[in-house]
């Protein structure tokens, strides 16, 4: 009986030819066993050519058998390769769509909030979606206006959402680097500036509201959540809330605090405003979440979903059968959220809260950056809709560990620009593919991966390679995410480049 292993191991041409020849030699002809009389097996002979033709046909069929067999199993279908080592994607996509009801996620776009400022005189300007294109002079990456319409006031400024020209992970533009318009408007400047706070996610069911009132741009990246534990108003100090700070993979809850006009948490200052007199401004369970600082990055683009990730989402189907939400189930919901909303959240890891029973801490990140406040808020909202009755999730951005690369790269004369470009892309893809907590089981960002990226890109020689200044693998803890260092995250930025003859 043929085993699964045999079905997955196509026989090669030599084996098939030997099989056919053995049949010819043993088959009885005119009643005589072994009666096949041909002895001429030199190239071009009729019999040899005929046997090889049959073997060629069978060889093709052997590979079809392998693919058909693998296509029935998630892990096998997601790792199918063709003869050149390229992934075969069709089988896995059909399996996911027809057996699990999962469609593969398309690549997503990087989105940033850009600030457009006009001097007094030449404005105002009104432009519609797609009519403004900004770019980064250092990378050449272009971003197209995504808002339906934006008016840049004369002598003032406005913010608008811009989307990368193409999807994928190639749009690594740091704060303050997108500073030019492809078609300049007189008097108008553009930048992707940081702000004191991101756009807050507000789940206030009462008549009151909360707004950021601080002006300081912090360097301490964190997410702050105010959760009301007692209903009431601010003017009579009857409402109370707790404050939870998510930072570096840890959550710290303080309070409850009485809701009165202004509340500060570090450099964050928020103002609580009551609704109409006589109404209840805040209800128990109301929440307000904000990310600090306010990065212009709304979401980092991602490549088309990998087959391994698609297989994982298919497996999430089983976790969904559980009545009580489990960590795996929350992770599955986050992946489902990404499939539905294309937020650019491609990394997730959950664990039960270490401090509060019944709470699941869910850490998320994008491809080469941790999650933005907007992403955290969107995922939190999605999970709130899914859970809530039995268990509850707290979503936080995974702690970012910026990775700076170093070393000396030598290239053949005239090839440096091409090698730099290829090396940057290869390194971005490596970081983007790293799960939260690095390569398992040891949680590594591997120095060898950097060396491979350099050589695959066509470098002649790579010496003195380092990650964050050390010639060793970088070790991440379970809920950390590797990101690209602002100034030396890419090989073209952080390495010394030399040309040789």
């Amino acid at each position: 009986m043929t085993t699964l292993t045999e079905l997955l191991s196509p026989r090669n041409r030599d084996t098939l030819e030997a099989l056919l020849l053995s049949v010819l030699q043993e088959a009885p002809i005119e009643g005589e066993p072994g009666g096949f009389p041909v002895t001429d097996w030199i190239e071009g002979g009729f019999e040899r050519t005929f046997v090889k033709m049959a073997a060629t046909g069978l060889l093709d069929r052997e590979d079809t058998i392998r693919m058909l067999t693998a296509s029935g199993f998630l892990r096998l279908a997601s790792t199918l390769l063709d003869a050149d080592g390229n992934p075969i994607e069709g089988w896995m996509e059909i399996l996911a769509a027809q057996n699990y009801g999962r469609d593969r996620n398309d690549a997503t776009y990087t989105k940033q909030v850009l600030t457009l400022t006009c001097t007094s005189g030449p404005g105002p300007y009104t432009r519609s979606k797609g009519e403004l294109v900004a770019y980064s002079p250092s990378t050449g990456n272009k971003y197209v206006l995504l808002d339906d319409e934006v008016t840049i006031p004369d002598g003032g400024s406005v913010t608008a959402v811009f989307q990368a020209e193409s999807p994928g992970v190639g749009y690594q533009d740091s704060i303050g680097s997108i500073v030019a318009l492809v078609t300049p408007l007189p008097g108008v400047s553009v930048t992707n500036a940081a702000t004191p706070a991101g756009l807050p996610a507000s789940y206030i069911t009462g008549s009151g509201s909360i707004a950021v009132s601080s002006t300081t741009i912090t360097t301490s990246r964190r997410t702050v959540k105010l959760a009301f534990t007692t209903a009431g108003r601010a003017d009579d100090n009857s409402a109370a809330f707790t404050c939870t700070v998510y930072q570096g993979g840890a959550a710290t809850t303080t309070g409850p605090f009485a809701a009165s006009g202004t509340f500060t948490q570090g450099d964050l200052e928020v103002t609580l405003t009551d609704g109409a007199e006589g109404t209840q401004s805040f209800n128990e369970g109301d929440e307000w979440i904000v990310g600090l600082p306010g990065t212009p990055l709304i979401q980092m683009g991602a490549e088309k979903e990998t087959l391994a990730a698609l297989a994982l989402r298919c497996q999430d189907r089983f976790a969904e059968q559980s009545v009580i939400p489990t960590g795996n189930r929350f992770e599955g919901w986050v992946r489902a959220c990404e499939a539905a909303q294309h937020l650019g959240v491609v990394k997730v890891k959950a664990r039960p809260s270490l401090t509060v029973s019944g709470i699941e801490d869910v850490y998320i990140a994008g491809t080469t950056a941790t999650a933005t406040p907007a992403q955290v808020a969107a995922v939190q909202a999605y999970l709130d809709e899914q859970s809530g009755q039995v268990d509850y999730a707290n979503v936080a951005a995974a702690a970012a560990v910026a990775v700076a690369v170093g070393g000396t790269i030598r290239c053949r004369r005239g090839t440096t620009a091409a090698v730099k470009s290829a090396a940057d892309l290869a390194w971005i893809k490596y970081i983007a593919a790293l799960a939260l907590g690095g390569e398992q089981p040891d949680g590594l960002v591997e120095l060898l991966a950097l060396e491979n990226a350099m050589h695959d890109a066509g470098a002649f020689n790579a010496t003195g390679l380092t990650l964050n200044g050390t010639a060793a693998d970088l070790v991440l803890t379970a809920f950390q995410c590797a990101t690209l260092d602002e100034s030396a995250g890419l090989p073209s930025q952080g390495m010394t480049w030399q040309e040789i003859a």
Partner: protein
Amino acid sequence: MANQGDPLGVGIACTTGFPLRMQLCWGVENLQNSLLRRLNASQGCLASIGDEQTYGYDVNDLLNRDWSGTGEMAAEGSAIAAELRKDPRVQDARARIVASQDGLTIYIDGESAVGPFSLVVPVRDLTVAKLNQGLAGTGPTEAV
């Protein structure tokens, strides 16, 4: 009965296309058939089934060529002889091309393990055929 110990081998008798009658041949005739198949195959035509990229030299390509002189014909003759020597049964081979109004004729003389052989190959429009199967060792044929 086929001589299965023949040093030049026993094969199905055919020179072009699929043989409608599966007849065996051996000896020099089998060798000549092999050589004719070589000269009627474009180079690399067997690569797709796993054979050598260098197999084949299609003499039909020599038709309608504007020959610049006997030097060019001699060069082609050498190339044909080299192709024939790729067959391990051919110890030596020489080829001479003669042009006429009807087309070309290739005269081949060679040495095999069992002695000398010769072959005359008329090349006409889209046709290569044996005119003379040789002087020595011609074997009989029989149906499989």
